């Protein structure tokens, strides 16, 4: 049991240490922790096949750090999400690079996760008292896919909006409760600002918290069970000579990390991540396409419509998920060599080829339908056009309200000049936003009719008088204009 304190005789004696290191060690037990982590025995020795787990850990940490930094500028609301992502991508120094790391990091996560899962499956490393390890891994897989799904919406561009619309629509195919789940996910019947809030909270608080807990339990369970070793090793009682995790396995793991850093860095530098035009729910021509790793699912769902939809959307996926979860409980044999497990390998290849096939089929159909191909090309062109435009700050809503009034109603426009000429704005603020001296006038239409306002203007109440509001003596036309303006304030 590797976490438990060991007998003195189990560990080679350490040279005596002095100074701050020893002081720190006495108080934290850091050396023991480090030795425990680095001396993890790997039956059969270090191998490149085992590097994917730590690669995933690295990407996860990178996603957390880049995500936290992106949140410095991001605002989760339908009004501002797209502007703030455009600001990050186009204006903020290193913003396009960091956002690229985060976006491409998500793809890299899916790729390395697939490799990690494949290695575990092909090596039969889920065998031998590793059921919980496998289950925590499956849960992590689900969490990563959920992170990809929720993160995709946050930029609130055309691609994000419509991909999520399709994704949440698919959920409504679930009988009885599907519509309710969809509404719960969207925060309403339609996609909107509440959808962003929900996806943001899931993406930034809930799912990462689950991932932290699951990663911790995954590593704990892994250390508890011990490394499974090569395919001809006994999953219960390892017999081969063990090599400690450090140094050779560490170096091999680090080689993948270095490759990931280099690959992601170059990708972000040479293929800057895109941001399309802001989501326009009224765009009836837009053809939604999910991220590449969701293409197989997307294609799969196309085959199931009407009364059989439940089979494709619910029954088959549930059976597949249950089969995957139950794998270490069903497959109890100690045989790990893939060539002696034709059933398992056949199933693996079938799933992989199906996924690749569905993904390729989706791509093929898109390319060979002239209408779709043309529209997708147009969408890409729009994305490129938008990407090349310089960043334009969003006009704040207060500015818009003031500007619109002047344009819309000539009477209200006249009233605005009176409002400012008579210094009403001195106390009530520009556009009637209110100040410390006097209340806001925005929305006053709901409280008072024009006649009531005229009366209040001519004969202010005692409370108004006390606040410094003078009676307004204006020609009837001007009074009408002033009332029209005050009533127009929204």
């Amino acid at each position, binding site marked *: 049991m590797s976490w438990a304190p060991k007998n003195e005789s189990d560990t080679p004696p350490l040279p005596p240490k002095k100074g701050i290191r020893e002081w720190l060690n006495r108080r934290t037990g850091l050396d023991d922790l480090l030795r425990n982590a680095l001396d993890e025995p790997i039956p059969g020795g270090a191998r490149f096949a085992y590097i994917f787990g730590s690669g995933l850990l690295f990407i996860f940490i990178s996603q957390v750090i880049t995500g936290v930094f992106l949140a410095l500028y991001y605002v989760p609301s339908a009004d501002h999400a797209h502007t703030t992502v455009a600001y990050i991508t186009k204006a903020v120094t290193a913003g396009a690079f960091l956002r690229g790391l985060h976006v491409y990091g998500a793809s890299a996560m899916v790729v390395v996760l697939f490799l990690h899962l494949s290695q575990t499956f092909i090596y039969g490393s889920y065998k031998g008292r590793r059921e919980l390890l496998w289950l925590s891994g499956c849960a992590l897989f689900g969490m990563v896919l959920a992170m990809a799904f929720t993160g995709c919406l946050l930029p609130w561009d055309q691609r994000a909006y419509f991909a999520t619309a399709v994704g949440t629509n698919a959920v409504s195919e679930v009988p009885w409760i599907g519509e309710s789940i969809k509404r719960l996910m969207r925060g309403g019947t339609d996609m909107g600002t509440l959808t962003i809030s929900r996806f943001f909270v899931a993406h930034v608080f809930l799912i990462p918290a689950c991932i932290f807990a699951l990663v911790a339990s995954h590593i704990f369970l892994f250390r508890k069970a011990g490394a499974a070793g090569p395919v001809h090793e006994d999953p219960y009682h390892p017999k081969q000579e063990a090599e400690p995790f450090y140094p050779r396995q560490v170096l091999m793991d680090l080689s993948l990390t270095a490759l990931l850093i280099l690959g992601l860095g170059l990708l972000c530098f040479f293929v800057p991540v895109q941001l399309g035009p802001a989501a326009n729910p009224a765009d009836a021509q837009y053809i939604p396409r999910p991220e590449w790793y969701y293409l197989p699912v997307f294609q799969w769902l196309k085959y199931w419509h009407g009364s059989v939809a439940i089979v494709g959307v619910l029954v088959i996926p549930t059976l597949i998920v249950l089969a995957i979860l139950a794998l270490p409980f069903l497959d109890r044999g100690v045989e790990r060599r893939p060539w002696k497990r034709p059933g398992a390998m056949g199933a693996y290849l079938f799933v992989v080829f199906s996924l690749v096939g569905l993904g390729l089929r989706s791509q093929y159909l898109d390319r060979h339908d002239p209408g779709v191909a043309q529209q997708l090309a147009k969408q890409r062109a729009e994305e490129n056009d938008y990407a090349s435009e310089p960043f334009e700050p969003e006009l*704040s809503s207060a500015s818009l309200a003031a500007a619109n009034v002047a344009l819309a109603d000539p009477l209200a426009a006249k009233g605005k000049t009176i409002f400012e000429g008579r210094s009403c704005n001195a106390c009530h603020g520009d556009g009637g936003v209110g100040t410390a001296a006097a209340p806001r006038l925005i929305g006053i239409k709901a409280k008072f009719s024009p006649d009531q306002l005229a009366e209040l203007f001519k004969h202010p109440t005692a409370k108004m008088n006390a606040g410094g509001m003078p009676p307004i003596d204006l020609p009837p036309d001007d009074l009408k204009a002033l009332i029209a303006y005050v009533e127009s304030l929204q």
Partner: protein
Amino acid sequence: MVEDARWSKSEDTRWSKSGTGAHSDPGLSLESRRSFLGALLAVGGTLVGILMAAPLIRFALFPLLRRTTELKASSVGTLTEFSSLTDPVMRTIQIEQVDGWRKVVSEKAVYVTKDRQGNLCVLTSVCPHLGCTVPWNKEKSEFACPCHGAKYAADGTRVSGPSLRGMDTLETSVQDGQLLVRFQYFRQLVSDKQIIG
């Protein structure tokens, strides 16, 4: 327990395949080789860490590297419009304030007038007493605040009333024959001009 049996194997058989070739070189102990590699990894890791932190730091320090908030100068009109100015004239200027990823466009009334030396200057219409908008009284040839009766001369200097200072001048510049002004707010109820916000 099975695991215990595994751990109780002798050191030599458990770690025999340590891969660093320690056993073939009796001059250098395994421990010192491992700690040398550890130091190398620590240095390498630190360097890569610094390299990776660079974009993060640049991203977070963006407000130090570039302007993220900006009050743009607003045009009051062309210089020729004001060449034969006798009385102060009120102009409404559009103020564009960039605030990170948003901008606020608002309108403010200012007065174009002449100072004592006869040079063009721009006064804010906000009374330095309590912030009311001060109108120009053409008949009496003075600024008279409707709220508390503060009075100012045509160049903005204080004449009488509760205000502790004259009307505030705004920073102006000329570009391509346009008179530009930077609108600012000043603290009320103090005798000197203090910029706020």
